[in-house]
């Protein structure tokens, strides 16, 4: 949990993270989380979606089944990532640099009927 509280003098970014389609069950069964995350990673590079995914696994996930969210350090197949309501493919995928007040939605693709 060492990463959970940014050092007090480090700049942070306020964002909201939403989970849908069942993924919320991995995160305290809560669909919306208002988070303050470090503005830069450990190499002082701006925080990206890739950084956020790692951050969520380390600090927010309450379910031990992390393979339901990430596989080989990337988001697992069958999860859509939406950056401010747009498919992350339109925004640069993992390399997108987080901006204050961004909304990131992770939604599990459904197949039932």
């Amino acid at each position: 949990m060492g990463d959970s509280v940014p050092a007090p003098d480090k700049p942070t970014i306020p964002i909201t993270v939403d989970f849908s389609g069942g993924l919320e069950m991995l995160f305290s069964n809560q669909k919306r989380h208002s988070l303050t995350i470090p503005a830069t990673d450990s190499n002082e590079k701006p925080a990206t979606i890739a950084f956020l995914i790692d951050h969520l696994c380390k600090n927010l996930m309450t379910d031990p089944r992390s393979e339901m969210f990430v596989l080989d350090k990337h988001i697992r197949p069958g999860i859509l990532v939406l950056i401010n309501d747009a498919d992350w493919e339109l925004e640069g995928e993992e390399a997108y640099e987080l901006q204050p007040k961004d909304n990131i939605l992770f939604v599990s693709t459904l197949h039932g009927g």
Partner: protein
Amino acid sequence: MAQYTDRALTEEEMERYSRQMIVPGMGKDAQLRLINSKVLIIGAGGLGCPAAQYIAGAGVGTIGIVDGDVVEISNLHRQVGHSTTRVGMMKVDSLITHLKGLNPLPSYIPHLTHLTPHNAADIISQYDLVLDCTDNPATRYLISDVCVLLEKPLVSAASVQASGQLTVLNCPPVPQGITSILGVTHPLPPCYRCCFPKPPPPSAMTTCGEAGIVGTVVGMMGIAQAGEAIKILAKGHHRADILNDPPHEPTFPPSLLIYSYDLEKGPSSATFRSVRMAGRRKTCFACGDNSPQNLTLEGIQKGTPNYDQFCSLPSAKVTL
């Protein structure tokens, strides 16, 4: 679309369809386009039942239904086109019985089988538009691939537990392998693989049988599918000829509707969220630049790609 609208409506049609024909944006031409349309509903379950009720009610002239299952008691809380007295009957026959009562005018075509790589092209080729009302990833990829190859618009919905999703794909259809058109700056319509390139691992897949399903949630998605199909056919959106000389008609911004009926919250807490999707993907296996080398109707019929393997299913079990 002249050939679609060059007859009068019969008196019976006028009476039956009058309430929707007088809605601004509908009208006689729209009604005749519906009457002359052929729609395929794949899956006669929680999505297919409500979708079929409203597609039949609206007067789509030819309605095909594909399903290989029989009606079970546990279906009936949500599969409202069936009946307790028809438990054990093929779902397709049960649903058509109900639909004929609702509207005897359309032609109903039963396909008493699951959709398979072997029969998919034969069946889908007979229709103008496809509704994916199935319940497993392997069949979803198969349907989309065949719709790309046959250039059919596809309205796809899914639902599990208290969540639903809906997206319109391949509309209007663009031939396989074409990912840009001179003068068209808007995105070309995506296929299912453009939106969802890889299936989830088997451990993350859940069906309605295993995970449960709220009837009204899948019902909302089924009716929403019918709403998209009816609009596309009535307004001729699937015929927008974006390959023609400029000025090109604009394409439709691809989007995904996410419905969430929150059982942990009180009344009026359900949310509907529409998110922007990317268009046709240059690297798409099924419709991208090199896709004609990956995917052909002949290949599918001969077992390439292997959908069960792709979705890591035990290959014997591909149920709707």
